[in-house]
């Protein structure tokens, strides 16, 4: 694996559980030793440096706040460990607490805080010693869904403000797409693709990236000499397109329709070309064509939204005509 971050960048490591993203993060942190290879921070090889010498701060999935210390002492801990002069510590704590709006919580113990407050304290503890790199290990996964959206927003604003290079581990593609300047999609200990959210979503480098990103994932059907992929949201009834773009027409026998409010998910089996392939279409509520299970409809995909993959290597190949 070869992965370089850019200064001040928000890099997301995205992958299914067990793909090695947390291990990678822990190796960068110095909590685990790589069996081979080098890790550089600011141009310096840090393989042999202990975590504390790497100028790195990490926020853990569980936040790992010290339960026996008050918020104040939690935030002061890295400063004291760093050997900062006693009179400078309160100033720094005040700055970090103000940054996350937790000034009123300084006297409390972690168990007296809500999930969102804990997360902010963990961030304050990480930011207070002004590290060169921030490592975040699924920091939002312990929050409930409602809080997660606002925490995501806060997190990004905060990262933009301090401008510190940040590496963020998650298995949640919405977090990855929403937060990352770039996303490294990982699987089986390898980086499958590195790119901006638009790149990894619209131009997936292989079938893994194509089917891992997107919910529901990309339809991938077998052609005689290649694999063809198209996203459910590009697979719409023929009459939903107003012409212009060149379309590939596909017949669909609908087996089931799920009404989800903003969208309809249409499950079906292709007819004609790619006969028998099971596919999924996502119709936004703006598409009002009636669709019923058990019937056959004319669907279509814009030609430029068709992605082609090599059936052997499963890597992306050049576009071709179908």
């Amino acid at each position: 694996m070869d992965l370089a971050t850019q200064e001040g960048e928000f890099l997301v490591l995205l992958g299914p559980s067990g793909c090695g993203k947390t291990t990678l993060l822990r190796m960068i942190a110095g909590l685990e030793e790589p069996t081979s290879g080098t890790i550089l921070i600011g141009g310096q090889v840090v393989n042999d440096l202990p975590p504390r010498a790497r100028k790195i701060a990490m926020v853990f999935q569980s936040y790992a706040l010290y339960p026996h210390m008050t918020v104040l002492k939690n935030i002061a801990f890295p400063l004291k460990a760093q050997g900062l002069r006693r009179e400078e510590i309160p100033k720094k704590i005040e700055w970090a607490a103000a940054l996350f709006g937790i000034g009123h919580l300084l006297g409390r113990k972690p168990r007296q805080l809500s999930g969102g407050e804990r997360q902010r304290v963990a961030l304050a503890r990480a930011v207070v010693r002004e590290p060169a790199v921030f490592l975040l290990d699924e920091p939002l996964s312990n929050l409930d869904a409602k809080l997660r959206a606002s925490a995501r927003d806060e997190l990004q604003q905060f990262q933009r403000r301090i401008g510190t290079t940040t590496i963020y581990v998650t298995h949640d593609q919405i977090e990855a797409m929403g937060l990352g300047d770039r996303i490294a999609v990982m699987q089986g200990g390898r980086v499958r693709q590195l790119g901006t959210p638009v790149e990894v979503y619209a131009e997936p480098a292989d079938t893994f990236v194509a089917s891992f990103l997107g919910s529901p994932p990309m339809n991938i059907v077998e052609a005689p000499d290649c694999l063809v992929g198209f996203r459910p949201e590009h697979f719409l009834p023929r009459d939903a397109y107003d012409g212009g773009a060149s379309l590939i027409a596909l017949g669909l026998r609908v087996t089931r329709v799920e009404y989800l409010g903003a969208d309809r998910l249409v499950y079906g089996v292709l007819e004609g070309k790619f006969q028998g392939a099971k596919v999924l279409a996502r119709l936004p509520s703006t598409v009002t064509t009636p669709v019923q299970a058990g019937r056959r409809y004319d669907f279509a995909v814009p030609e430029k939204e068709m992605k082609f993959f090599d059936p052997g290597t499963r890597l992306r190949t050049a576009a071709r005509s179908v």
Partner: protein
Amino acid sequence: MSDRLATARPRGLSFVVDSPRWLGPLMIGPAVLYIVLVVGLPFVLAILYAFSDVSMGHRTLEFVGFRNFASVLGTPKFQTALKNTFVFAVTSQVLVMVLATVLALALIRDFHGKWLVRLLILLPWVAPISLGTIGWLWILDSTYSVINWTLEALGLITNEGWLMWLGVPHLAMASVIVIHVWRILPLATVILIAGLTSIPHDIHDAAQMDGAGFWRHLFQVTVPLIRPIMLVAGLFGLVFAFTDMIVIFVLTRGGPYDTTQVLASLAFFTGIQGGDLAEGAAVALFLFPLLVAVAVGFLRVARRTEVT
């Protein structure tokens, strides 16, 4: 429908087992009986005896108020025993807590042969106390001591300077304390290992990331987090040290010149071997306030851990 319900009603044993009103008392009954017979009854008897003039060989019993306590309290024998009890209990517990922490920290790491080391450390706890102590009696013997033999072979002492481990006041006290520590250490270590494994690994990682060195990590993170369980181990140990006299009984019998006599052994020698049941009971009752204090400590720790 109602007929079928009636026939389905449990009878006999299954009725008792299915009914919380009967099952609860049935299950706790034996324990209550045990405590009443083995702890409660002797305790009441001890109080009765302490205020009486009962002794072995007499069939009568008269109450004499606080006379026993008064006569015991004034004797130098009792005062030494009281002092020794504290020296013995506190010193051994401090040693146990420090050593158990070190051992537990060493034993939660992964290394080859860990199971063997763990087994060896647990051995003193599973071996019968009296047998283990008799082994130590030989090791510390004035004529055949292997420790002296080794020290001489190493050239640290001469043939004339052989140490009387159990025959010199301070050495004897040191010896009984060391053997007691040897005996209690496994239990404390196991309790502390349980405490250490309950700390989430993330906390240790966080301390490492925050730049804490070994000592800061140990004293500001690890030890505070296992403090409640350390207290439990410490209080357990204190109860043992205050009430148990097997080590002292086997090694020194309170000697030389009562310098290792503690309240428990003094009560035994006065009451059982000396035949003065009343005075023995009075001596034993002096342990009571000590143990009450420990018990209160226990309950407070238990409550605090419940709340958090």
